[in-house]
Structure formats: structure tokens, C-alpha cells
């Protein structure tokens, strides 16, 4: 690991000041992504700003019935929060399906949104990777790409976004609150992540020195049910091959409102408005779930080793909808 300047921030202003003048400064919170990648020389920040002292650890109800989550709230605390478990079940389930209890005790809400891909070519500096080293090529496209994306890919990058939490937040229509040198802004999560296109190194709309301070969740209609289902190579402590977050509001057996997001199959947490339209105002039935899954995966571009993900993603979505629509409300 390369040496770096270390700065401890106590306030948000502290942190912004510390990061502003430094080209290549990184904030460290839980450290579970950054320190891992620094050991691999994938991340080589000249300055590391420790934000563990920032007072961003609250989970608060908002006046409009939503939730405001501090960026430093640990994944385990968010997963076990009573309000999250009751009203935003999909988020609690997604968090508890990610990583391990130890890592969830470290990882934060803000950091989880910024997790880097688990693509093994990105993580190994011996290989070409446009995300790590722009213009160097993509070793995954012609390499072993079983874990890679089938949606949102480009000829420059096929790496999946690894977060479970972000997939649930996508289906919950979360907003990211950002402070930075160029001012403060609120960005809907759906507009936060970028497709790789020809610039896979640019994964989101954050500018250098920007800090995520909170994520907010809007209130959900009464009687809304939600579920997160994750399929992977082992039962726990593994990244998704395919996952689905669904948030549905029922009217008898009819689906009045549906929000659908997929994980493990796309270059960003993948909201599917097509699947939502295919579900809304229709009966909750396996036939309709399957039809929604078909449209959600219509644009899939399987590669040499990951064609199985097309059917897997459809099945995880169907199963997830089945569970969510048959839960006792």
C-alpha cells in the first residue's frame, strides 16, 4: 500500500475543507471497500480523510412520513432499526443479505452507495481495465465473465454494481443528499448512478470533494409490502448473481403500485420501469409476474459465461413478487 496523508475530520465542513485542495483525496468511513482496494493498489489516494467522527449517525423520521438516514449509519444499525424493519422491509432484508455481521458493523450507508465492483479484472492490476485505468481495455469481455453484467453494459465495461442496499433503495426511490465544493444538492438515486458507456471510471454524479451526508426515503402508501431476494453461489457472505427488490401496493389481488429493481446483473443498481408498467393495474399472478420479468430482461446482452443470469434474474424477480404479494399485510 502506498503511503498517504491522513486527516481526521470532526465536522462536515472539516471534511470538505480537508478534501477540497487535495487532488486524489478519499474519504474513509467503514473502510471495507477503500482499504481493501488500497491493499491491491487499485485505489491509491494521496490523502485519506477519516470521517468517522462526523455527526451523521441518526435515523430520523421526516415530517412527510419518510426517513432520513445519516451517511455514517452502519449497515447493521440500519438493518435492525425498528422503523426500517417494519416500513422498509426490503431495505432491512437487502442489508442483512450483504457481506457478514462484522462487515455490516463497519460499512456505512454512504459508503455502501459507493461500493466498487467485484470484477476480478478491476481488482487485479495485472489486467487491463477501463474502470481502473481508462483506455487500457476490458479484460472481462473476452475473459471469464460468469459474474458480470447482462444489462447496462458497454463495449468498455461489463462490471456489475455489487451493492444490495442500493438495489433496495432504488426500489424505494431514495434520494442522495450531497454537500461539496460546488454546493449542496439532492439527487434521486435513479439519477445518481451512471452507465459505463465510454467512461466506466465515472460511476456516479459525485464531483471530486463531494460528500454524501444523508439518504432519504419517501413515505410509502399504506399497506405497501416489500421484499428482497438474493441468489448467489453460497447461502451467505457472497455477492449476488441475481437479486430483486420489489415494493408493491395491493388493492385486493390487484397490484396498484409496483417498484422493481434488480441487482447482480447490471452495471448499476437496475430499476425496471418496464416491469413496473407490466405489473401495475394487473392481478397478482404468476403469469403476470413472468410477463414483467420478460420485459425487465428484454434488453439483456449475455456473454460467454453469464447467459444463465438471464433466466436466473427472471426467476428471482418472479419469486420475489410472489413472496411480496402473498405476505400478510
Amino acid at each position, binding site marked *: *500500500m*502506498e*503511503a*498517504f*496523508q*491522513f486527516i481526521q475530520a470532526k465536522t462536515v465542513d472539516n471534511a470538505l475543507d480537508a478534501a477540497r485542495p487535495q487532488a486524489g483525496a478519499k474519504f*474513509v468511513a*467503514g*473502510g*471495507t471497500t477503500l*482499504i*481493501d482496494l*488500497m*491493499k491491491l493498489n487499485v485505489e491509491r489516494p494521496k490523502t*485519506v480523510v*477519516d470521517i*468517522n467522527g462526523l455527526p451523521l449517525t441518526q435515523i430520523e423520521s421526516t415530517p412527510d412520513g419518510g426517513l432520513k438516514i445519516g451517511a455514517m449509519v452502519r449497515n*447493521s444499525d440500519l438493518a*435492525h432499526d425498528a422503523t426500517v424493519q417494519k416500513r422498509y422491509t426490503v431495505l432491512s432484508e437487502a442489508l442483512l443479505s450483504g*457481506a*457478514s*455481521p*462484522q*462487515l455490516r*458493523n*463497519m460499512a456505512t450507508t454512504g459508503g455502501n452507495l459507493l461500493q466498487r465492483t467485484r470484477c476480478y479484472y478491476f481488482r487485479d492490476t495485472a489486467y487491463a481495465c477501463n474502470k481502473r485505468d481508462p483506455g487500457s481495455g476490458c479484460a472481462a469481455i473476452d475473459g471469464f465473465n460468469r459474474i458480470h453484467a447482462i444489462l447496462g453494459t458497454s463495449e468498455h465495461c461489463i462490471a456489475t454494481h455489487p451493492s444490495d442496499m442500493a438495489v433496495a433503495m432504488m426500489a424505494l426511490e431514495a434520494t442522495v443528499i450531497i454537500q461539496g465544493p460546488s454546493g449542496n444538492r439532492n439527487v434521486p438515486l435513479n439519477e445518481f448512478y451512471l452507465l459505463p458507456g465510454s467512461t466506466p471510471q465515472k460511476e456516479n454524479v459525485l464531483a471530486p470533494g463531494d460528500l454524501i451526508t444523508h439518504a432519504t426515503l419517501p413515505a410509502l402508501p399504506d399497506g405497501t409490502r416489500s421484499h428482497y431476494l438474493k441468489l448467489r453461489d453460497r*447461502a*451467505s*457472505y457472497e455477492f449476488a448473481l441475481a437479486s430483486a427488490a420489489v415494493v408493491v401496493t395491493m388493492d385486493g389481488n390487484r397490484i396498484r403500485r409496483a417498484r422493481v429493481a434488480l441487482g447482480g446483473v447490471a452495471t448499476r443498481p437496475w430499476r425496471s420501469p418496464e416491469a413496473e408498467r407490466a405489473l401495475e393495474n394487473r392481478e397478482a399472478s404468476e403469469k403476470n409476474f413472468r410477463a414483467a420479468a420478460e420485459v425487465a430482461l428484454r434488453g439483456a446482452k449475455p456473454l460467454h459465461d453469464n447467459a444463465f443470469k438471464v433466466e436466473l434474474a427472471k426467476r428471482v424477480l418472479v419469486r420475489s413478487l410472489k413472496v411480496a404479494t402473498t405476505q400478510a399485510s
Partner: protein
Amino acid sequence: MNKNRDPDVPSNGGVSKVSPDNGFDKPDEFTRRSFLTQLSAAGIAAAAAPLIHSPHAVAAPATVIEPVPETQVPGAVPFVLNINGRDHRVLLEPRVTLLDALRENLQLPGTKKGCDHGQCGACTVHVNGRRVNSCLSFAIMHQGDKITTIEGLAQDGELSPMQAAFLEHDGFQCGYCTSGQIMSATALLKEPCGSDDAAVRECMSGNICRCGAYNNIVAAVQTVRKNA
């Protein structure tokens, strides 16, 4: 290594001076770790023999290597870590992980380095009562925290209930993952975790055991939970 060894050096190196009864009955004088330290010192001496071209250079039994006088590492920062109830003043670069600080600088090698990337759990310690992977945290981020390692579980020479249960249920084979398993299992007692074995397996999934002692580990954890 054997083919390079000077024939004058006894094959058991410095170990020949220590009788078995001496070793295991008096842990203050001779411990497993001091045994291993002597063994590796002997190995270094033997391996070096052909290079220094002196038949006498390694004739004496190996002794513990002299501690190197503390050198000023460029960029090292002084700070205090509270570990197992004691404050330790350290002088470390910011890039030193909590795991490396414990093992390499504070002589607390009970915490193990497995993968060094948060994928195995061998390095699990408690920070303010919560279990974390010490390999994915810089030591300097833990000023003011209360850190507990496996060395801090036993009180007044008495094993903690979880340590005792791992012994009773044979919750290990090679033992390398064990301190991480016990630290995880100890923290689990205070966490929301379902009562059945499947829930324990899920709550313990951050600790990999390549020997596959999982059944006995679950039994140990459940015994402590039932007696709590």
C-alpha cells in the same frame, strides 16, 4: 533447507535444551510461541550458514533474535490505542491496519491474518463491544475506541464461557480461525440472532473454517446461549 544445513548443527536446533516436561508445565517460562520463535530463529541461522562460509557461525544453539532498536519510520504518528483495558502508546504510519498493529507492534498475535481482505473473519476483534474485521481498518482510526482481542477474553486466568465451550465441543481442528470464531461468537451473544442452529450459522457466516469444524462451532455457541 535440509540439504544446505551444516552437519554440525543439531537437527533440532535450539530446541534440544528444552525438555518437554519443562515446556508445557511452566507456560511462563516456555510457551508455544517462544518455542516457535526459537524454531524460526534456528531456521534462519541454518539457512544462512552456507552464505557466511564459517563452520562456527551457527554452532551455538539459536537464541531469540535481539530486538532491533526502535527506528523512526518516516511518516509514523504517535497515538494511543486502548486494548484489553490497557492504553498502549504506539508510533505507526497511518497505513498500518489495526490487525498489523496488534500482531506486529503490540505483541498480540492471537488475532490472526487469514485473507487480509475481509473475506475470512480470522482477524475479528471487538471495537466498543462490536465485532469488526481488523484487517480493513487503519489503527489510527481507533484512537479513543475500546478494542478487545482474544487475549482479553479470559478474566483472572479463567477462560470466558465461549472459550470454554469451544474446548468442550472441539470447535476447531487446525485452530487458525479459532480466535476469530470465538470473538465473533462472543459478540453474537449480544446481537439480534434467531434461536435455531440455522440462525447461528447465518450469524457466524463471516468466519470461514477451512477444516470444516462448523457443526462443533454451532454446538459451542448454542451451549453458551442456552446457559446464558
